[in-house]
């Protein structure tokens, strides 16, 4: 653009000023940068002094050479020696020199000396390149290593050795010895250990990924904004659900205890267990088919619906009992199989453990399930009740409930704190939390207003996101320290830590994928009258499957990497072995483990890339 002279005349000084200012800013930035890095060098103790010291360099070279020779195979060794006599100090008359006979041979120059004197040992006729040691052998026959040697291409060497400080009238011996490998190579103990541990490592990664993914998938829906933002309700409804959850959980705990006790009564004989389990599960299947007809075009009457709810409740109780029995049966059969199968005993043990885990999960599922049922029932009840109230009573109703819910949450928090810090003062553990909770609930209820547009979904979304973020901030190496306290040092601790971290990482990645799906199919399926769950199964799940598979593979890859080092913190796997060997200075053994890790990680990398390519 053309400028008038007047314009450029006006601008020139200001431009100069601006460039001066910019220069100043640059100078300050550079100075600041230098300061930051100078301080950084000091804090991190960057120093080449240590690195230059010869003793350190020598150690480094030794370790590098050890690493280059992984401790994987060994041979039978055969020792070849050559020896010659030595006198300390020199006797009055030195016996006549006999030229060394045979190969290899060793001679000294001179053949005697004062205590502590250095003399030269010369070897001849050794295999070229043979590595060995020169020993001084006093009369008691114990070899004292004096020097290392390596024969040259002619099979000769010459090293300086020191004579002992103690004089002796007797004839003593200097001996040169080297080892030669004979026979076929065989794997070392360390190689077997490395194999065991690398298998353990890969399976730790597999289990951690599997468990983590199983939890991350449902969580990812709760952490997806596009699925959650439309879930709204009244403040009162939310308050009812919040209050019903702990009550339901308590009820569920009682139910699961009763079911466990009930099942204990019949588990005396495996046969009775099998019969009762299959009978109750069959009854459950029949009941479900009656209470949940596959399709209904008209709304059933209230009485039928009530009967169905009762039937479903009874069915779930029976189902719980039957499942617990089935789990017990599984443990029993597994134990029996473990004894019978011999080499394949791990299959039986697996079955037994699976039964054990199933029982644990069933107990937790009963607690969670009853909590959800009670919460959703009370939510429905609230939703039915509220519209029947006169409009003027709705706000007080909402506010009362939200204050009550706040008080309940406060009480729960108080009870938790009382347990954690072992508090006994009722004012601190009961009165204050309830009062504060009620006030906070009241205020939140007041702010949320009266409409039925309170964003319950977004509350859940933000809670889930927060939990995932906090969980992700803790590295699995740190998690495993805590977990190892609980379940003991070993691979299981590693599996739990990896699972936990996988939940956090995949939960976030999955939910971000859900947020990018097309909304059209969601709208279309919702328009057919589908429930939210049906909408997720028919419109969301098909869209996310490829990415979920790909992300899970990717996570497995990461988990293999993590599981190789999680042993450093007590998580089992190959890292445990590696850290031990590194600390003991067994660098050749450690080298084998490093090699194994490199191989497995590279292989996993290729495998996961290949499988991901197939999945998408």
């Amino acid at each position, binding site marked *: 653009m053309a400028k008038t002279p007047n314009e450029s005349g006006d601008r020139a000084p200001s431009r100069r000023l601006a460039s001066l200012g910019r220069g100043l800013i640059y100078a300050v930035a550079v100075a600041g940068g230098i300061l930051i890095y100078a301080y950084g060098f000091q804090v991190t103790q960057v120093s080449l002094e240590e690195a230059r010291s010869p003793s350190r360099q020598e150690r480094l070279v030794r370790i590098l050479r050890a690493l280059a020779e992984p401790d994987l195979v060994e041979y039978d060794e055969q020792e070849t020696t050559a020896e010659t006599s030595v006198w300390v100090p020199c006797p009055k008359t030195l016996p006549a020199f006999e030229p060394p006979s045979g190969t290899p041979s060793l001679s000294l120059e001179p053949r005697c000396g004062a205590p502590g004197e250095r003399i030269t040992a010369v070897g001849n006729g050794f295999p070229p390149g043979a590595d060995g040691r020169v020993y001084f052998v006093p009369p008691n026959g114990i070899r004292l290593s004096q020097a290392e040697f390596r024969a040259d291409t002619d099979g000769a060497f010459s090293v300086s050795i020191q004579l002992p400080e103690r004089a002796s009238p007797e004839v003593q011996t200097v001996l040169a010895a080297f080892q030669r490998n004979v026979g076929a190579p065989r794997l070392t103990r360390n190689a077997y250990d490395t194999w065991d541990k690398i298998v353990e490592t890969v399976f730790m990664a597999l289990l951690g990924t599997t468990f983590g993914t199983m939890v991350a998938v449902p969580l990812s829906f709760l952490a997806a904004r596009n699925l959650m933002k439309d879930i709204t309700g009244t403040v009162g409804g939310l308050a009812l659900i919040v209050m019903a959850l702990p009550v339901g959980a308590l009820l569920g705990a009682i139910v699961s205890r009763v079911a466990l006790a009930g099942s204990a009564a019949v588990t005396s004989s495996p046969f009775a267990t099998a019969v009762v389990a299959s009978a109750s599960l069959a009854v459950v299947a029949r009941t479900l088919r009656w209470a*949940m007809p*596959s*399709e*209904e075009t008209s709304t059933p009457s209230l009485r039928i619906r009530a009967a169905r709810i009762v039937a479903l409740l009874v069915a779930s109780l029976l189902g719980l009992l039957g499942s617990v029995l089935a789990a017990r049966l599984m443990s029993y059969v597994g134990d029996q199989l473990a004894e019978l199968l011999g080499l394949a005993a791990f299959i039986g043990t697996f079955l037994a453990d699976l039964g054990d885990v199933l029982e644990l999960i069933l107990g937790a599922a009963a607690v969670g399930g009853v909590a959800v049922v009670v919460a959703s029932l009370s939510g429905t009840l609230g939703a039915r009740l509220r519209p029947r109230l006169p409009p003027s009573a709705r706000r007080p109703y909402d506010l009362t409930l939200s204050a009550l819910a706040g008080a309940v949450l406060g009480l729960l928090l108080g009870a938790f704190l009382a347990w954690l810090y072992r508090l006994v003062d009722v004012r601190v553990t009961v009165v204050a939390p309830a009062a504060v909770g009620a006030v906070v609930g009241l205020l939140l209820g007041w702010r949320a207003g009266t409409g039925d547009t309170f964003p319950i979904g977004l509350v859940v979304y933000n809670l889930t996101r927060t939990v995932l973020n906090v969980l992700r901030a803790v590295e699995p190496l740190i998690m495993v320290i805590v977990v190892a306290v609980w379940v003991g040092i070993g691979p299981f601790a590693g599996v739990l830590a990896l699972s936990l971290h996988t939940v956090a990482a995949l939960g976030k990645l999955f939910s971000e994928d859900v947020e990018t799906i097309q909304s*059209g199919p969601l709208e279309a399926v919702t*328009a*057919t*009258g589908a429930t939210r769950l049906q909408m997720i199964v028919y*419109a969301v799940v098909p869209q996310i499957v490829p990415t979920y598979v790909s992300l899970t593979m990717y996570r497995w890859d990461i988990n293999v990497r993590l599981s190789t080092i999680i042993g450093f913190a007590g998580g089992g796997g190959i890292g445990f072995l590696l850290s031990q060997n590194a600390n003991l200075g067994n660098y050749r053994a450690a080298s084998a483990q490093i090699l194994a890790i490199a191989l497995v990680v590279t292989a996993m990398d290729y495998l996961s890339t290949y499988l991901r390519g197939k999945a998408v």
Partner: protein
Amino acid sequence: MRAGTSEPAMLSIRHLSKTYEGGVRALTDVSFDVPDGQFLAIIGLSGSGKSTLLRCINRLVEPTSGQIVWDGVDITAASRDETRRIRRQIGMVFQHFNLVHRSSVLTNVLAGRLGYVTPAWSLVNHFPKADVAKAMHELNRVGIPDKAHSRADELSGGQQQRVGVARALMQDPRMILADEPVASLDPVLAHSIMQYLELINREDNVMVLCSLHFLDLVHRYADRAIALNEGRLVFDGAPQEIDHARFKAIYGQDAERVG
């Protein structure tokens, strides 16, 4: 505004308004009645509120105020469960078909039955045999029975919209909402899809509310047309009544007729 015809009003929209969260007024005080079995075209510029109006009827969009009464039932006051039972009687056809691409055509059509089947069974992809047979029947009706096991995104645009129509038919609908059903298709395909809607309207006596861009389609298929301009009802009458002056009122003074 023109009063409804002498037949008893089946769908009645009263003083419907919708203001979106950002403050956008999509609909302002829209009222009209639709008798049973009518083919109603909704016309207007893009952004005039046609989509919002259709989505208010099955509550995909929550109206801000006003009432929608259908067959004596106040849709706007329905609870969540009641809304689902109302929705399952209203088929919807979309401009971009809104099929689940990675699912098979059959699964996409069966999805139309989700409002009827018990949720627990459908979650494990179990549908009654009768529903599967019905899905094949509907696919037959729209002329693509051989595509049942293809993936939805392997189909051409016209075929995808037929799947969309079949999905709506699976619901045994008493009303069909069609949101620009042919705007993404070429004229030949457009007519074939419109003929399916016409067939459903005539044979099954299903009320059709269809938003359209092209006036020749309105003339050819609709019994009656309403027009929206910036969320307000500006015309309600027979398609033939849209003369030059009314056209300018609906589409603005600068608009030219193209078809």
